[in-house]
């Protein structure tokens, strides 16, 4: 923990993410306008004192839409990664602990999943079922667990040979107890790093999907679909695309910096 605090860049990432989380939680109180409020006389105003980030084609306040979009983007990022971590941890732990044909089957499933380009898989599934926020979270989660599974499996493979596992067995612990109490807590460090980096990736995936119109559906604002709506007015209203673009950039960058900071801190400890 103190090692992360000493790493200025990682700390900056953490502070930015903390700020974004506060913004997301307090969105209704912070946002100057209703993000869905259409006000055609004020359409396409450049940034000014009344609208710090300008307005879009329907006269909606871009800043308010960005603030509400923070909610959507962070929620999708965290829940998708949560699903990926849970699935990946279970698969990796079972494969690593039991070995043999169980391991072979699960790892071949992982290989197969990794061989399919994620973005096409995402597009295909969402195009078939139809876009909704819940589905996006689940699908991003279910296409992103393979890395975690491999990490956990590798950790478990080396941990299960350690003497304290034998000691736990000698104390009469069951396999379930050994996996959950003795192996997984020791294997969580690399998973934490991968999850932090993964949140950035998930937010990016959501933006890509929304940009292609298969993500969060208007009028609900998400960074990706604000960007998408701004695309058509790119020549006349630069503020519509620059601000969500910067929001995505800064957020993903912050997650990456924090993740790398955590990784360095853990590497130094070992």
């Amino acid at each position, binding site marked *: 923990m103190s090692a992360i605090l000493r790493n200025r860049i990682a700390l900056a990432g953490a502070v930015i993410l903390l700020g974004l989380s506060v913004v997301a939680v307090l969105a209704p109180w912070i946002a100057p306008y209703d993000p869905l409020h259409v006000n055609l006389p004020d359409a396409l105003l450049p940034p000014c004192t009344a609208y710090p980030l300008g307005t879009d084609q329907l006269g909606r306040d871009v800043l308010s839409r960005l603030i509400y979009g923070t909610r959507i983007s962070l929620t999708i990022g965290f829940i998708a990664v949560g699903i990926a971590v849970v699935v990946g941890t279970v698969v990796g732990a079972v494969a690593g602990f039991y070995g043999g044909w169980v391991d072979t089957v699960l790892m071949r499933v992982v290989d197969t999943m990794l061989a399919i380009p994620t973005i096409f898989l995402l597009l295909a599934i969402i195009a078939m079922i139809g876009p909704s926020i819940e589905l996006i979270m689940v699908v991003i989660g279910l296409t992103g667990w393979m890395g975690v599974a491999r990490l956990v499996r590798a950790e478990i493979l080396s941990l299960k040979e*350690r*003497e*304290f596992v*034998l*000691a*736990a*067995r*000698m*104390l*009469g*612990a*069951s396999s379930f107890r050994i996996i959950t*109490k*003795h192996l997984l*807590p*020791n294997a969580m460090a690399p998973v934490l790093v991968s999850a932090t980096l993964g949140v950035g990736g998930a937010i990016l995936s959501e933006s890509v999907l929304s940009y292609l119109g298969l993500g969060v559906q208007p009028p609900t604002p998400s960074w990706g679909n604000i960007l998408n709506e701004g695309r058509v007015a790119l020549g006349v209203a630069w503020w519509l695309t620059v601000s969500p673009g910067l929001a995505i950039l800064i957020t993903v960058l912050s997650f990456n910096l924090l993740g790398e900071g955590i990784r360095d801190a853990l590497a130094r400890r070992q």
Partner: protein
Amino acid sequence: MPLLDVSNLSVSYGRGRERVIAVDRVSVSLEPGETLAIVGESGSGKSSLALALTRLLPTPPADVRADRILFEGSDLLQMPQEQLRAIRGGRIAYVFQDPGTSLNPVLTIGAQLREAIVQHTAYRSMRANAQAVEWLERVGMPSARDRLGAYPHEFSGGMQQRAMLAMAMAAKPALLIADEPTTALDVTIQVQILRLIRDLTRQLHLSMLLISHDLTVVERIAQRVAIMSAGRIVELGPVAEVFTRPSHPHTKELLACRSSVTLRRGRPSHG
């Protein structure tokens, strides 16, 4: 009736041409309250024997056979896993060579001790905590109450081994299997830990299977000794007898090694 009665126990690893016999038709028995030492050089099968007793060796690659392994009157070979788990740690406790690697690095000493207590006794929550403190005090842990929240790496080797002993004793077992319990410790600490083990076995009327290659240790705390070589027990008898009148050449060799190390005691350097 003996507490433990093992008859013709064999352990082998691998199969076909690769097959290695680690333990070869070993029979031992242990009376309540008795300490039996198993002595032999590295690779003589001592640890395989200890692990095979409660069927802790993964099979395959290991293959464990015996006529019977009677413990408190029931055959461990016939016992379902569920019941065996209650015996492991409950009636038969283990202590290992290196406490530094036998403790889980991410759990506190208190959590690991409580786990042992909750699993094998009726104590829960607050009373399990009180038991944990009591056992840490019994194994000579200074300011035991404050140590519950400490992680293994905050302890010295000697303190870690004391914590391991507390975990082993907490379920009030009948048999303690100690696999080289002092080998990884400093010489000064070895004596303290040995004295502690000896006192605990006496107070709790515990039988002990002590695995060691340190003959001085064996002489101090065991009543009987079994000498193992290449998977077989080549000599078995009361410590005093085996040490003064060794009959098997391998025993003589082992004793000769020791006397050349402990020359300052004025023993002859070779039999």
